[in-house]
């Protein structure tokens, strides 16, 4: 899995990675140049040191050289920013709303016809299609960062930020909250799954595949225990909006916003003792359930794909 700036897989991230490599190269040359000059000033011969020991050298190395380099860099950086802005002139081919909440991601796919499909904690993106992410937060400041695709953008209560993303090839990438948001900020990540466009469309519009006969009991306990007052599952008696949408939770790679791999055991652990896995998360522990009941709920959740 990749959360690296240096392995870009989207237009913006590629531009920045090129910039970064150029900066590293330039910085390395300048750094070794300055260190060589410093070494020569301490250990060099008389003639070398005499050449260094003048105000003219200070003006040349301390003013003239930086001015030329920095001017060039400024133009390059402004040109990159213009490239980004111009990219925004055309309307995006898709829109996904991402709201960061303490400490998970509420994701809503907005279809061209206006239909809204709720998901959470896993962002699926179509390859080769430019998508606009609409970034908000209802509580504190968070920041959305998927290094392989591009730079980060803060999610600030009271404001709406928009970010264009386009991804070059299918694959799985990792993103993480980059602005300290209290408590388990460290445990607020998500996976990005890039799918071919047709596959993506099919997935977004696909039905929830839950509710096989083995999991009827789990679904019953889930609905009766009031899980639905916080969580929503399409097609079940659960439409809560407080916590993450669980309609396809079994199909996600991780639970609790990138904290644990999705599995029946991990779901059980999280339901019974989520506070020790992700301290401070807003779901109270449900230790009252009998072991087989929680297991049934987990089995049911696993079936939601």
């Amino acid at each position, binding site marked *: 899995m990749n959360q690296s700036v240096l392995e870009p897989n989207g237009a913006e991230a590629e531009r920045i990675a090129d910039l970064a490599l150029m900066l590293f190269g330039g910085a390395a040359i300048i750094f070794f140049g300055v260190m060589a000059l410093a070494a020569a000033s301490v250990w060099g011969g008389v003639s070398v040191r005499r050449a260094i*020991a003048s105000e003219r050298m*200070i003006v040349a190395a301390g003013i003239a050289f930086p001015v030329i380099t920095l001017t060039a860099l400024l133009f390059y950086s402004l040109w990159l920013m213009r490239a980004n802005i111009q990219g925004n002139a055309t309307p995006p081919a898709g829109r996904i709303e991402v709201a960061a909440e303490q400490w998970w991601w509420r994701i809503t796919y907005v279809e061209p016809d206006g239909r809204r499909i709720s998901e959470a904690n896993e962002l699926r993106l179509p390859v080769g299609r430019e998508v606009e992410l609409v970034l908000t937060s209802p509580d504190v400041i968070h920041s959305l960062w998927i290094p392989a695709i591009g730079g980060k953008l803060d999610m600030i209560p009271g404001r709406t930020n928009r970010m264009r993303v386009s991804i070059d090839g299918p694959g799985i990438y990792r993103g993480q909250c980059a602005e300290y948001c209290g408590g388990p900020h460290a445990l607020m990540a998500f996976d990005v799954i890039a799918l071919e466009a047709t596959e993506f469309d099919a997935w977004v519009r696909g039905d929830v595949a839950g509710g096989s006969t083995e999991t009827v009991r789990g679904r019953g306990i889930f609905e009766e225990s009031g899980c639905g007052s916080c969580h929503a599952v399409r097609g079940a008696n659960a439409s809560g909006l407080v916590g993450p949408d669980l309609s396809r939770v079994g199909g996600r790679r991780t639970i609790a916003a990138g904290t644990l791999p999705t599995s029946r055991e991990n779901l059980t652990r999280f339901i019974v003792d989520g506070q020790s896995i992700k301290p401070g998360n807003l779901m109270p522990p449900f230790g009252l359930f009998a072991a087989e009941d929680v297991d049934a709920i987990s089995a049911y959740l696993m079936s939601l794909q």
Partner: protein
Amino acid sequence: MTSTAERETAELPNPLPRPRDELRRLQAVWAIPEGWRILSAVNNSVIGYFYIGAAFLFFVLAGVLALLMRVQLAVPGNLFLDQESYNQIFTMHGTVMMFLFAVPAVEAMGVLLLPQMLGARDLPFPRLGAFAFWAYLVGGLVFFSTLFFDMAPSGGWFMYPPLTGSRFSPGTGADFWLLGIGFIEISAIAGAIEIIVGVLRTRAPGMSLDKMPIFAWTMLIFAVMIVFAFPAVILATMMLELERAFDWPFFIPDRGGDALLWQHLFWFFGHPEVYIIFLPAAGMVSMIVPTMAATPLVGYRLIVVALIATGFFSFGLWVHHMFTTGIPAMSLGFFSAASMAVSVPSGIQVFSWIATMAAGRLRITAASLFVLGFLFIFTLGGLTGVMVAMVPFDWQAHDTYFVVAHFHYVLVGGMVFPLFAAFYYWAPAFSRRALSERLGKIAFVLMFVGFNIAFFPMHIAGLIGMPRRVYTYPAGLGWETPNLASTIGAFMIAAGVLVFLLDLIRHLRPTVGASAGNVWNAGTLEWLENDVHAARSVPFVESRDPLWEDARLSADVHKGRYYLPGTVTGRRETIVTSAILAEPQYVVRLTGPGWAHLLAAIFTAAFFLLLTVKLVTAAIICGAVAIACVVAWAWDTDSPSAGDVDIGGGIRLPTYAVGAASHSWWAMIILMAVAGALYLSYVFSYLYLWTVRPQDWPPIAPLASHAGWIASAALLCISAAALWASGRSIRAAVPRLWLTVGLTVVGLLTLLLGLGADVASHWLAGLRPQHSGYAALVFTAGFLQAEIVAAVCIMGIFACVRILVGLTDGRRSVVFDNMVLLWGYGLGQGALGLLLTHGFPRLGM
């Protein structure tokens, strides 16, 4: 050089023998209180020592916190620290390092070194300096100890709301941060005022600005930057505390506040802060390099330019920390340009040091090694600084370990390494023995190698995706190796610091009279033979390296052959000189040891800390006691003129000055600049919120009636008239002191009523501070004005009482004049407040 100065120098050094008991009398008036009474000492050598000791204590404490974090992050999924502890620890590490170590440490170096370096006997306001120190120590210790009670703040050292608002941080941790740090910032400002006046007005005769040591230049610019930068964060902390305590919604977006307002104010302080810390450290390097290379500094003028340019440009960078908040592209480009501009002056300094090393021959001492280490680390940090100034790169690097690496390279490289160089360099001037070169070199190697092992891998960790401020991380992302390396490096640094501590224990023998002396053969005045009264006599300075220019200077100064070789008034005293040319103007008598300033510091700290835990009554009592202590301490500071005195060299100077000649007047002007900067930050906040939330402004919100501002303006006019008349009456040919007192009382009452009329008009119109961000800001104008009015009233009562008991009159008028200055400022601020809160909404924009 003017011709009079040449004539004066011709008579110095004075070859005549000195009176026998002159030195004994000088030592007697400057004597340090014995035993535990040393706590009442105010002399810069003693307070400077305490100050550095305290700052170093906080460095070690915050360093231990860093080690705890490094243990936690050594391996993925570690359970060494729990999440809440880690969050508190990283918050405290940053806060303590910035506010309780870095700024106080450089201020402490200024307090310790400046008087000796400038040829003064002491700083101009010894008790103010001591007050600032004690307030910082008491406040800092209590603040740090909150960690032991699980009451420490956990919102990060940057304290971004809404996370730090009462909804998401209901405990008292955030309050400790806001009140505790706000209070320590006030202490830093007190120190800054003292340093500015000290540098500009108490230099040795002849030391014009172009002959001033670079360290003094850096301390001057450091202090001026504090004056303009700290008020922004003081305002921000005030507003956040008002929000938390009284529900004034400055930063709550649902109620017309704005979360980014905090970031603007915080970083308007926070970015200059980096240079506030760095510049004095660079100044230390500019002192150490010439001595170790045994040659004058190359590029003195260029360095002065670089320092001033840094002072300015660093205020144009604050949005540098907000590149990912989604603000418009042009602002980003604009701040990116300023970020580049500020890197040029740093380059100038680096190449000046290199040129100086080349001009002489660098002796490889422990101090030189720390300087070379600084050059290495700081250059690398500067280059990554240019990288994060590139907006697109910063979108990736921001809030990752790359930035953690960058600013540790800049701050540890730029400040801690020079500070250790300074410890090794200046220890012989303040200790009976020099520190050990061998232990120093061992400490350097451990710290230098450890630093690079600890922090270089963080660049990589950040680039491969590791965000900052995470208490744990998963395996499998490639973060394990760099993190383990960082932890190992951190312990190497700690080992280096331990070796240094061992060196201190074995070799540091603090003294103010019998130091090891000028072991490096340095050229500046702090290497004269010093006692608690600084040098025996005050030399006439003719060059930047006086000890190199005149081989006999040290001996002549020590034999009392220059100015002021004894005490001319029987009190502690120093020569006040003009700001630019350092021409002698008058002899100021300085205060000696006392307890009032110490009690004032303790009770001021108690006031703020008791407010934090909501013990309001106890807090108010402590506040009142603190004010009483300040009054008691101020009572005997304004000594009457003792006539003209002879300071030697054929110069007779007065012993009292009023107006712009008075050093006290300068301090008051600087205090007004602080208040003005605070108010301008407020005006910025008001206008800023208007640009983001215009929908909350009148006519949606109720607007005070015309009667309100007219009444308030009329009262301010009456107050101004009374101010003018009272100033005239005290200086009248036939002074009628009762008239002066009467006019002052009327003027202060109308000033108070003017404020009351303004606030009442908003209240009667139905506006309440809890309504919206707009409403809260309207009442903030009144809150800020109330602070000034309260200060003017206390000073006014103080001045009136002194007039009535005959201690203040038209000639001995400094107390009255200072009150008048602040009064005038209050009138101006009040008028500006009326224009803003009554006039601006009526513009109909």
